Structure formats: C-alpha cells, structure tokens
C-alpha cells in the first residue's frame, strides 16, 4: 500500500492552497475577515494572561512570557487537531462527488493551524515588547521545536479526521483530551512543581516535551536536554506511525460512511 504515501507526497504542493481556502471559510461573513486571525489570539491571550497572572502567583521568572509561550504552543496543537477532526465530515458533499486523496483535508488542517500560529507568534512578540523582554539567542531554535510539533499535529490529524467519520464519539473524546491536556502540560506552572510519580507518567506526553523545549530555548537560553529531545522525537514518531496506520485502515471506506 505504498500508493497512499505516494499520493500524499504528490499532493504536498496543494496543501497550502487548501489551507488558505479553509481560512477563508473560517472567517466567512465576518466584518473584519482575516484580521480576526490576529485580533482573536490577541484578545484571548490577554484574557488568559489576566486570569492566570492574578490567580496563580507562582515564583516563575518572566511569568507573563512563560505563560503566553506555553499557551501559544498549546493552541497550535489544539487548533490543528480540532480543525482536522471535522475536516472530512465538513466536506461530505465533496467526498461523495469526486475522488481526491483523503489525506488532504487532515494535513491541510495542520497547515491552517501553522498559518494561525504565525499570527499568534506576532501577538506574543507584542507582549514581549510590552514587558521589555529580550529573548535569548537560542530562540532561533524555536522554529525547530514548532516543526516537531507540526509533525505531531499531522500524526494526530490524519487518524482523527477518518475516525470522526466512522465514530462520531471521537469528537467528544478529543474535546475532553484537549481540556485535560491543557492542565497536564506545564503552561501556568513548572514541571518540577509536580510530584515525582506524576512527572514520571507525564514526561511521556509529547506536548509536555514540546512546551518544555520551547521554554528552554526562549526563556532560559538553554539547549533542551538530550533526554527531552529523545523522548519528544521518539514519542512523536511513534504517534505519527500509529496515526498513519489508523488512517490507512479507514481511508478507503470513508465515502461510504458519510
């Protein structure tokens, strides 16, 4: 069945096109249009910042930036997987009328979320300027961390998109996973604050590794530890392979399940 992989590779050029259409559909009928992709995270980050910085007084240096960086990383993951979840079900008429590689909607959801991420990073930059925060030079490694996160998003987007056609339950389960994940990821606390038993389990979460690496390179001027990198690359590769296998199993029949 290499043909599915070949098909995915051949269509890589049109994913960006498709992602742009997705954004257009997302902001349809809104007065401000694409401006929302900038305003929405600005307002949202402001709200989360006010809530968490007044309610949780942890002794974390540069807490505003620490918090917002974590939120931006997590929202990238949340946006990508949520868009992927409904990417096929929202296109039932297209799927029952023409054949095209079924990987396109799920993967382009990842690209859409990457475009949204660019806007959120701009908002983060505004906050950095407002707090007169000067990031360390290792911030140049942040794109690598986010690229690894994009791979994770692809790996989860593909199976989510087909599973949600077959089992509508996927949507509800994934909503719960995302809410739990927000609290189980060191976004408004530090990982070391957790009891060791919990840390031992949570260290396998790829999002814990991603957010930790982002904190390291942006705030502490440190290279992520070899352990962290290995855990992250290992778990994300495993998830992506499993995700691809699930996708391959269900993709041929999705038009019939619509």
């Amino acid at each position, binding site marked *: 069945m290499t043909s599915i992989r070949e098909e995915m590779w051949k269509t890589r050029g049109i994913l960006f096109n498709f992602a742009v259409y997705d954004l257009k559909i997302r902001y349809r009928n809104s007065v401000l249009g694409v401006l929302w992709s900038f305003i929405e995270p600005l307002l949202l980050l402001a709200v989360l910042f006010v809530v968490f910085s007044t309610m949780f007084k942890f002794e974390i240096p540069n807490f505003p930036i620490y918090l917002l960086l974590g939120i931006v990383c997590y929202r990238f993951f949340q946006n990508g997987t949520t868009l992927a979840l409904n990417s096929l079900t929202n296109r039932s008429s297209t799927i029952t009328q023409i*054949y095209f590689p079924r990987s396109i909607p799920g993967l382009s959801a990842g690209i859409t979320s990457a475009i949204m991420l660019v806007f959120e990073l701009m908002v983060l930059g505004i906050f950095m300027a407002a707090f007169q925060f000067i990031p360390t030079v290792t911030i140049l490694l942040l794109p690598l961390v986010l690229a690894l996160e994009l791979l994770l998003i692809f790996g989860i987007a593909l199976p989510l998109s087909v599973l949600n056609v077959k089992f509508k339950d996927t949507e509800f389960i994934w909503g719960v996973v995302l809410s739990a994940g927000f609290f189980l990821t060191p976004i408004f606390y530090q990982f070391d604050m957790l009891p060791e038993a919990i840390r031992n389990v949570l260290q396998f979460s790829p999002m814990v590794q991603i957010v930790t690496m982002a904190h390291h390179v942006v705030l502490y001027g440190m290279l992520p530890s070899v352990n962290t990198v290995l855990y992250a690359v290992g778990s994300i590769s495993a998830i992506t392979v499993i995700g691809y296998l699930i996708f391959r199993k269900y993709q041929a029949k999705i038009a019939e399940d619509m």
Partner: protein
Amino acid sequence: MSDYAVSVKNISKKFKLFHEKRDSIYESAAGFFQKKRHSEILQALDDVSFNVKHGEIFGIIGRNGDGKTTLLRIISKIYSPDSGSVDVKGRVIPVLSLGLGFHPELTAISNVYQSSILLGFKKEDISKRANDIIKFAELERFADTKIKNFSAGMQMRLAFATSVLVDPDILILDEVFAVGDINFQKKCFDTIMSFKKRGKAIIFVSHDMEPISKFCDTVMFLKEGKVGKIGSPEESIAAFQDYLAEHPEINPKGNISSSV
C-alpha cells in the same frame, strides 16, 4: 491490454443497511445500551462487466436504486469495489448529483479552482481556463457569488463547464440534463458530440430515454445490480421497458419517459 478507455471487470459491491426500529421509549433506552443493530446486506452491484471504447458514448439506464450511481462512484474511485477491477485510461471527471464536489461557502471561481486542483489539474492550467469556464457556464455576473446562493441549474452549469473545459479523457455524467434550460442543454449536447469526435469516452446516465436513444452508441440496462442487457439503445431500452411492464408492482407510475 485492451484499447478500451474504461474496462470494468466483474465488479461486485455490497452495502450494509442498518435498520433502527425503536418504537417505544423502552426500546430506545434498551437499544442505547445494547449496541446490536438490525442490519441487512444489500447487494448493490453483482458481477458487472462492460467496456467503453474511445470515442464512444455509453449510456446506463435502470430503476432508481438499481446501482447506477454506485457504479459511477466505483469508476470514479469514490467507492472501492468488494471484488473486480476497473481499468481506466486517462483522467476521469465525474459530474455526480449535479455537482463537482463544490463547497457551499466558497465562491464560484474558488470552487472551480478547488475542485480541479483536487482532481489533479495544475493551478496554472486552470488559471488559463477559468474565464472560459465562467463564460461557458453563463455565470459572468456570479463568479464571486458563493455556491450556496446558486440554484441547482446554475450549480450544474458550473460543474459541467468545469468538467469539460479542464479537458478530461473520460467524462461521467449523471442526470446532468435534469436541470438547465433548452439553450444550455443544446450547448451540452454539442460539447459532448465534440468530445466524442476527439476520441474521448463519455459515460452517461439518465432517466430520460430521449437523449439516451439519440446520443448513445451503446446502452447498458442495469437490472437490480446485474447487467440486464448491453446493446444498441433500442435493444436496451426495449429490455428495460419489458422489465418495467413485467413488474408493475415495483414501479407503479413508471419513471420512464413516454416519448420513446
């Protein structure tokens, strides 16, 4: 290998039909907990084989629910068959249920791009033809209107214009003449005939026997998922009409046009 444009060999396809008979509150509550659902196997297509030559217009007729659309979807790769094979030479464009996979929230022109890109055409090639497509569909005023505001006829015109102007090797048309005015129908027929002259294959499904008998070279009558008859339009239409006459109970009104 054969020099057929489309070669369908022994295609079979089953569907599982689920029935949920929950008449009382108790039953729906019980049904919620026991995941057992009544299901039934529907043999949509049973060992169907046929060939379409280059430059041939191939008609398919049959009652509703006898497998015509399923067959077209299998040829277009939308469904995969349980057994059998489909061999297609060149690029296929299907116009099924009056659309080409259009998204209601995108404008006409965006949909032309999206559908043809998804079908594997290059963006630059479509850019060259986009204006012609809109002009052919007679939708110049509506190029930037969202598809959801289109009538069925407008949507079909756009789908047909896109499908012929991207120049596929094989064209599949399902009931495209059910909507649209006389002028546009004539334009469609002219285009189909020019496709035929250029050696392209056309598979054509209709409930209206007039265009079937007028344009098709060969007609297949699909009877309850099986091949009822493959032959000249007259032979196949006669077989279909005989079948309907023998089974008045399944088709009391007769969905066949009386003009033949």
